[in-house]
């Protein structure tokens, strides 16, 4: 049984107008019908560009955003609708790691105070010194760090403090929202390795939310790709790279630069036209059809594609690979070819 089950989750933020007589004139559909499940001890990566709703999804799972519709089941218990002490009891089993450790740590709190706060809040008896030493050791910080303040640390060390705080209560699920994107390149790997090591030692389940597909693929067992509030493709990490089925995933993968000139010169890049449409007024039918290089004259603009297992040969698809595209089979078989995008392609003379 999966540890976390999300079904038909919707988070809509109302758009208000007027000063005295405030009325709702619309809604930003940040998350608009998402289904996900995460097995115990595994890692689900959620990728997408800014504005696709991935962060809102993570916060909604922890009941940090008001849920418009749908259900979030954690270890067999429905979380939506829980309040007060019941919710607090569940919260100690689910924690969050934030993107910017400097913003998510109180500059006036010493590390020992940061780490003892969750313990105190959830009614653990003091003294906490031994537990704090243990936590610092787990995340690779010296015991002397306890008496220091966030500004005395480098970015990578601060993120270690943020992770120590998240694991203080021995949670089962950790939602990490862009855990490494604020860090220097040479430091990112340290934090990624730490997250993996902690998962093995403590049996943690992760939901890692990030825009960097390379980092997500490295750390995740399964990946969900989001576009404009919906999940467009879910697949085991390797599958997603070997055989992306959704046109958006294909474009996303082709857009990521690879640090190797040999590969870069040979790659075919699929450029998307335009920008992300507004989540307050998403396109009809398939939300991606306005930018899709594979768009067809029928179905795409008026029929909403559902997340489904495509009918393609097993060696290409397989269980656990789902896609929300009407034409996934034709895209996979190569029967459909991408059309060129807004920027004219330029013939490149390879330079040496």
């Amino acid at each position: 049984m999966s540890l976390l089950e999300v079904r038909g989750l919707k988070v809509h933020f109302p758009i208000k107008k007027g000063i005295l007589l405030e009325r709702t004139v619309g809604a930003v559909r940040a998350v608009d019908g998402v289904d996900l499940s995460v097995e115990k001890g595994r890692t689900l990566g959620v990728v997408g560009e800014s504005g696709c709703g991935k962060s809102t999804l993570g916060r909604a799972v922890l009941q940090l955003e008001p849920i418009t519709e749908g259900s979030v089941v954690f270890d067999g218990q429905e979380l939506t609708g829980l309040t007060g002490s019941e919710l607090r009891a569940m919260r100690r089993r689910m924690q969050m790691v934030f993107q910017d450790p400097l913003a998510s740590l109180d500059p006036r709190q010493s590390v020992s105070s940061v780490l003892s706060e969750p313990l105190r809040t959830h009614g653990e008896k003091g003294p906490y010194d031994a537990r704090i030493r243990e936590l610092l050791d787990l995340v690779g910080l010296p015991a002397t760090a306890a008496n220091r303040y966030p500004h005395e640390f480098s970015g990578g060390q601060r993120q270690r403090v943020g992770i120590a705080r998240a694991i203080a209560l021995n949670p089962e699920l950790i939602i990490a929202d862009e855990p490494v994107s604020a860090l220097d390149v040479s430091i990112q790997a340290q934090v990624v390795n730490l997250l993996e090591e902690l998962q093995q030692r403590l049996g943690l389940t992760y939901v890692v939310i990030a825009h960097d597909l390379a980092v997500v693929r490295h750390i995740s067992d399964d990946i969900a790709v989001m576009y404009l509030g919906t999940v467009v493709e879910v697949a085991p990490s390797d599958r997603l790279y070997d055989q992306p089925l959704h046109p958006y995933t294909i474009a996303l993968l082709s857009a990521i630069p690879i640090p190797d000139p040999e590969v870069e010169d040979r790659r075919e890049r699929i450029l998307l036209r335009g920008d992300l449409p507004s989540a307050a007024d998403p396109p009809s039918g398939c939300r991606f059809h306005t930018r899709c290089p594979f768009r067809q004259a029928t179905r795409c603009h008026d029929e909403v594609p559902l997340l489904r297992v495509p009918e393609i040969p097993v060696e290409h698809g397989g269980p656990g690979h789902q896609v929300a595209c009407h034409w996934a089979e034709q895209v996979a078989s190569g029967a459909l070819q991408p059309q060129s995008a807004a920027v004219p392609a330029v013939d490149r003379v390879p330079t040496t």
Partner: protein
Amino acid sequence: MTAPVAAEAVPGHVLGAPRPLLEVRDLTVTFRARGRRDVKAVDGVSLDVPAGATVGVVGESGSGKSVTSLAAMGLLGRRGVDITGSVRFDGADLLTLPEEELRALRGRDIAMIFQDPMSSLNPVLTVGRQITEILERHRGLKGKAARDRAAELLESVGIGDAVRRLKSYPHQLSGGMRQRVMIAMALACEPRLLIADEPTTALDVTISAQILELLRSLVAGSQTALVLITHDLGVVAGLCDQVHVMYSGRIVESAPRRPLFADPQHPYTTGLLASVPRLDQPRGIPLLPIPGSPSDTLPWAQGCAFAPRCARQVPECLGAPPVLEPTPDTAAHLVRCVNPVTAPDVPEVAS
């Protein structure tokens, strides 16, 4: 002030080639603040940018990559900053040029694109006004002629419905669109040198691919030289002829892009490459991070600044500062290391 560096090789310099468009020699930038330690952000950087070339400068935060370009453009101000060395653009030293002549050069012959287009565009002027301003000042175009040219420029960077867009304010545009406007402004006078400082870092992956493709198509075949400053090795891999890797204010490795990625020799370069996961490699290859953080540096005067984080440290690393030297194979491949990584070596696992 600074002692001349003894005959160090110059990155990007080609023997016997015509004079390069931009010649930076021994550029040093020191920030001074009362009551604080002096910070040497750039420490003796020399490099050549030939006309029409695309040059990448790679480094992490604090490596001095942006300060190098700002100092070269005379954008650092005079108070609290000491700049020594020389920056010759087409023969004229930008560091000693009177402010007025410098201003005539900037925008016309040299243009710059910054990371965050929102904070570099003026929020209270329309996009059209900001572009025509440049055309009026440097090209003497007025009225309709200027507006027509501005619309043409917007078209050339892939903004549709350009005539209407001229009336837009920056906040009405998306991030990718704003960066396109910045590029249109930078290209308004067909500059000979374009400096792009992290042009895509603030953008999403798919938008960033659009912008890089645009930059590539704009400089390809033109005589405009592009200096691309970035922390992302992937970006330079596809775009740059020559790549300079900076660490703690100095260039530590410099090579044409193919040798740099095929045969990186400085432990910092190999460390950077081993610490980023690659999409095209099988999963499960462990990442080998560089230990410590970019602030754990040694002053260059005492040896190699990277030594405290380096897995290949030998006693010679601490002592005299290492010199940027050509590698045995290629004269165009320069490394500042006494114990460089040789081809079959894999970077050792740092504890």
